[in-house]
Structures are given as C-alpha cells and as structure tokens.
C-alpha cells in the first residue's frame, strides 16, 4: 500500500490496533443484544436474584409462554398488516413527490421542501392531541385502521425526502 517499505514492527502494531478497534466496536454494538438473548433463557426469578453473564440453567419457558400467548400472535399480525399497508401507501404517494422534488427544477420547490421538513419537526407526542381528535371524529379510535391512517404521516414517505434535498449535493457525486 505505502510507497516506502513499512517497518515490520510498525505494520504489525497498526494491524493489531486496527483489529482491536474492530473487536471493540463489535463488542460495543453486539454485547447488549447477546445479553438480551442470554436473559431470555433464564426465568424471571433467576433474573431478579443475581446478574449472570450466561444462564445458569438454560430454559425455554419464556419462549413457550410467548408463543402460546394469543395476544402476542395478534400483535405480530397487527404489526405486519399495518406495516404492509403503510409502506405501500407511502410508496405510492411518496414516489410521485420524490420524483418531482428530486428531478425537476421548478418554482416553489424550496417552499415545498421546507414545508415537508417542517412537518417532520413536530414531535409526534405533541401531535397526539390533534390526531386523537381526528381519529375520534372519524370513529376509528381503537382500530388498526386508525394506525394505518395516522402512521405514514410523519414517517417514511415524508422523512425520506426531507433534509437531504435542502442541502447542496455532496461534492464528488453528480
């Protein structure tokens, strides 16, 4: 790689440090996740007594309970349905706008971009009261329909075409 022949020791040292860094990053991002897997094989009582890196007597009881729970299966189904519908809706509606904003130079482009961006700036929590009112007025409170109706609004469709466009394109890209 380098023009001059590297001193051997320096090369080994820098490779070693690099791999140490890789290892550190992997540990940092993965360990909490592994710990979550680890405690999923322990009973509630065991977890509440003493923290352990590995389960003392691995058990599948949590998974048994989870998969025999009708409510859990329902939540999975709900998530799948809501996700599918909202993604499709956002995609269909959003792709038109994304094309117009991304490819066409026109009057009012910046205005639309700022409007879209501004809408993503409202904290979702504070839109709650307004959303609740509308969902209630429509009579769809408590249904997955209300989620499909409200979810796309501050999400993918809008988020995807927000802040990038306001900035000059990165140098080196055309």
């Amino acid at each position: 790689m380098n023009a001059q022949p590297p001193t051997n020791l320096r090369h080994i040292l820098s490779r070693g440090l690099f791999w140490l860094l890789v290892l550190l990053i992997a540990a940092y991002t993965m360990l909490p996740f592994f710990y979550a897997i680890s405690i999923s094989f322990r009973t509630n009582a065991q977890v509440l007594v003493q923290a352990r890196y590995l389960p003392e007597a691995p058990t599948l009881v949590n998974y048994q309970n989870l998969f025999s729970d009708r409510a859990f299966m329902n939540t999975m189904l709900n998530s799948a349905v809501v996700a599918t519908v909202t993604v499709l809706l956002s995609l269909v509606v959003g792709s038109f706008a994304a094309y117009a904003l991304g490819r066409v130079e026109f009057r009012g482009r910046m205005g639309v971009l700022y409007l879209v961006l501004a809408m993503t700036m409202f904290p979702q929590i504070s839109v709650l009261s307004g959303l609740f009112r509308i969902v209630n007025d429509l009579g769809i409170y408590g249904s997955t329909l209300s989620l499909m109706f409200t979810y796309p609004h501050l999400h993918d469709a809008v988020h995807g075409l927000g802040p990038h466009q306001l900035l000059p394109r990165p140098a080196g890209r055309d």
Partner: protein
Amino acid sequence: MTLVPPGTTRRRPTEQEAIALELVSALLMFIGLVAFGYLFYAVTTNDDIRTATQGPTIPGIGVEVVKIEPTSDAEQPYFELRPVPNGPAAASGVLRGDRLTLIDDTEITPDMSIEQVRALIAEEVTPPGGDDFVINIGFARPQADGSLQPATRSVPKNVAPVFIIAFLQNFGIVIPLLLIVLGAVIFRLGTRLRRYDIVAARWSLVVLLWLMVGLVVVAIRNFWVDGKGGFITDQPFNVGNGLGSALPPLLAIIPLAIASRWLSGAVNDLFVGDETLTSRNTRFAWSLLVPTLAVLILVAGQPLEQTFITSLTDDEFSVSRPVQFVAFENYSNLLSVQLVLVNCQRDDEGACARTPNGSIIWERSSIETEEAQRLRELSSAERRGFVRFQEVSTTPLASGTGLRILGRDPTFLNALGNTIYFTVVAVTLELLLGLIIALVVNSNFRGRGLMRAAMLVPWSIPTVVSAVLWQTMMRPDQTGIFNRLLMDLGLISQPQQWFANTGPWMASIIAVDVWKTAPFMALLLLAGLQVIPGEVYEAASVDGAGKLRQFFSVTLPLLRPTIAVALIFRTLDSLRVFDVFQVLLDTRRPSMATYNYDRLVAGRLAGYASAVGVLIFILILVFTVMYVRIVRIEQE
C-alpha cells in the same frame, strides 16, 4: 406532449368550438365559485359559530332553574337549580333540595318569576381574556331538624366560545385558506381560458384530471363508509346505501370528463402562446405533487394545525367548561424567566449556612416575596389563573451571593435545559463514535460485511425495547449486569444507582442513546465515505500526504455535507427525545417531549401541552435553519 412553436397563430375557431370553450370556461369558474360557496355555507350553518356569534341558546350554566311548589301550605314556594344532563358545567350545579337564595349578590325571593331567575344566570358572551368565569350562588340547605343552613357555591358560567376559537376549532387555518386560494386560482383559469391562452389550457387539464381523481376517491370512500354505516360498525354491508352515496360524486365526474376530453383535443389546435421550459417543469412537478400534498394536508397538516390552535386556548381534556381563547398566555407561562441575585443565609459565624449534605441555603429573593404577597391578596377565583414565579436553579457566585433563575414553570425550564444538554452532548458523541465506526467498516478487511451487519443491531431494535433492555442491564443493585461487570473489572466497589436523582442519570441516559443511535450516524457517514472517489486519495498519496493528513484534508471536507445531513437528522430526533427519558426516568427528570406527554395525559391540559409541543417545534426549526445556513455559507 407536443410543443407549440412560439408565435403560432391559431386558426379561427368554429362556432361549436367557441361555444364549447365558453362552456368549459364557465365550468371552471363554477368550480371556483363552489369552493367559496361551500366555505360560506359551512361557516354560516355551523352550530358552534352560531352560538359564538348569537350567544348561547340555553340559559346560563348548564343547570336548570326549577320553581318548587311545596305540598304543604306551611312552606313558601322556592327555587332550585338542577344539573342539566350532559349540559356544560353541569357537575357543579346546586344539589336537589337546596333552596336558592342568592345569585351574584341578587336575592332570590319566592315571588320572582322563573324567567327572572333564569335571566340572572343567563350570561352574555364573555370577551376574550375576561376572567369572570364564575357565578356565585348562595343557597340554603335543609338540615335533618328542618332548619335551613346557608351555604355558597361557585359555578362556572356557560361562556360560549368566542368566534375566533369556534372558527379555528371547526375549520382550522389550512383548509379555508386552501379553499379560497384554489377557488380563486380555478376561477381565474376559467377566465383566462376564454382568451385562448395555452398555459391556462394546460393548467386546466391538470386541474380537471386531479379533480376527477379526487371525486373517484370521494366516491370510493362514500361507498365504503356509508355502505357500512360508519368507519367501524357491526352492521352488514348495505350495497344500496353505498351506491346511493357514491353516485353524486361519480355523476359530477361526467361534465369534468367531457370538458377535459374536449380540451385535450383542442389544446394544440386552438390555443396560442409561448411556454418556457421552467413553466412546463413547474406544471409537471406540481401535478406530481398533488397526491402527496393532499395526504400531507389531510393527515399531517390537520393534527399539526389543531395542535397550534389548541396551544392558544386553555383547553382541558374531559372538562366540559367551554374553551377560552387565551392568545399567548400558555407560552408566556412556559417561557417567563427572571434573573435575580440572592444572598445566602448566614449562620452564627457569618459564613453561609449549609444543609447537612453541603448545599448552601439561600434566602428568598424579593420577587418571590412579592409574588407570595400578591397571591395572598387575590380572591380564590383570581388565584386559579395566577402562576407564581418559582426557583429553577441557583448558581453560587462569589462572596455569599448566588444567581437565581426564576420561572413560572420550573419543570418546563428544567426539561428545556435537560433536552438541550442531552442533545448537544449525545449528538457530539454520536458523531465522533459514528465517524470512527464508519471509517473502520469502510476500510478493507476480512469480515467487513459481517461487521456492517453487526453495527446495525442496536439501530434495528425499537427504541422502547432497547430502553427497557438497558433498564434491565443497569439495575441499581447486584441484579444489574452493568454493575456486576464494572465490579468484576474492579472499576467500582459498590453497585451504582445509575438513574437515581442523585446518580449520574444524565450520563447514563446519554450512554443508552449513543449506543442506540451511533450506528445510524455511522450508516449515514458510510454512505458519504463511499462516494468519495479513490483517485482523490491516490492523488493525495502521490503528493506525499500521510494518512492523517489525508483524513483532515480530503476525507473531512468531502464528508462535510453528509455530516450536516446526519447532524440535522440526529438533532431533530434528539430534541424530541422521548422513549429513553420516559422508560428510564419516568417523570422524575423530564425531557421536553416527556413533559409534553405528562401535561397532556396526566395533567389533561391539552392547551398547555400543545404549547409545549409548538415550542419544541420552534426549537427544532431554529437548529435546522442554523445548520442549513452554516452548510450553505461554507459551500459558497
């Protein structure tokens, strides 16, 4: 699309064509007028607005006046107030069997007519900002021994909403504005069509197309909703009802379709004029934007504007008191800040007195004393609307004085401070960490693909779940793996209470958030790193630049726009931070978003909470505009 060569002269329209054009133009003008007409009709027939402009139709206070004729001759007739079922403020009415004696200092005598008593409690609309919300009612309550015990009670008036609030709550800002603007634009298109203007003709085609699509959507919605008798019902689907209500919009499509068909046939034949490329592009872009803007306005714009409107009122959930327009009172209560110098309390030796755990005891400031005095002089009705200045924090300065920050809502100001501190520190750490991760996974090594997947694990876990996971890991005793690990490594000797008020709660929260979002930062930066062409590095290498020099002179400048985008994304999210604060700290130490939620759900103060939301929005806006400006200036 075929271009009309500039300066083409149109051929003379035939008589039929002239009539057709007149008809199409009239249709457009009619549609424009319908928009105005609909708005006018909706406003004039709205109940809330009629009540606001003409006064309430039921008397007074959601309680009914009843004259009681006693059964025995020994007693005189008397008046009672009875709560009206579902009436406004009914809950505070005088209980049954209580005898009215006074209404706002006017004595109620048995010989008064029922109309006279009603007139006493029938109130006119209180002007905005008026504070006289209460009617004081004196009554006598019969005791067990037959005697009458005097008592008083305050009942809120049935103040009708003022016009502005009634209008805003029913129609909002965006929809009326949109109707007026679109109505005017379409009307103008109609008039311009008559001049054989080609630009107007093409715009008309776009308008007609989307109107037809809109009508189809309305028809489908009507068919579905009215067929079922509502969005969610258990009734069987009634096809007749559905078709019946889908028919009018479908019929309305017919004239539009005819007009649009004729116009598209005639547009290059009859109409004249030049059109610039920009103008064509603008029309093309706007015609693509219509569906997105419609969805945005209906689904996102409405709740947003409702939030803004509610923030100007004193609205409360599940309180039947009429909503009052309070202008910016919520905001002024949230943001009022005063700075004062305070002295510490001296102990016997003249040094500052301290509490057992070592913090200085301060004296009350003059403002706090004044406000406490004022509070004592207020009547009970006035006291409710009065929010006192309270201590937010006191910073010790030299020689026994301290700088005290006073605010009308110390919790909010603390939340504001917490959020900004959190954002600045967390986003900085995320950027550094994300940059390191991105540089590592961008370089060539075996297992890079695996590493890129591993790096995204924290980001793929939902924030709430990861917050709960960290809560388990950072439990305050030996059941927390984090404590165990640090003790095994010999870094701490005692289990730490990471999220306790006296513990390092802010650092803990930031650590949890950084773990979760640094990978996202890394992902964005990685995308930026990958578009930097390799030749640039080769050139830098030939010029003799070392690795470090290459990083600072090549990588960083070329990565700057990507960093700006990543910073905007993360700052936007951090300022709205909710999940980690809510899960890990509950409401003990709020961020702005959790305070907003707390006021809304626990406090039921819809108006006040909305004002918090709008303030978060403004803060985010300021940060974003700042970033965009900085990046632009640097680019130029």
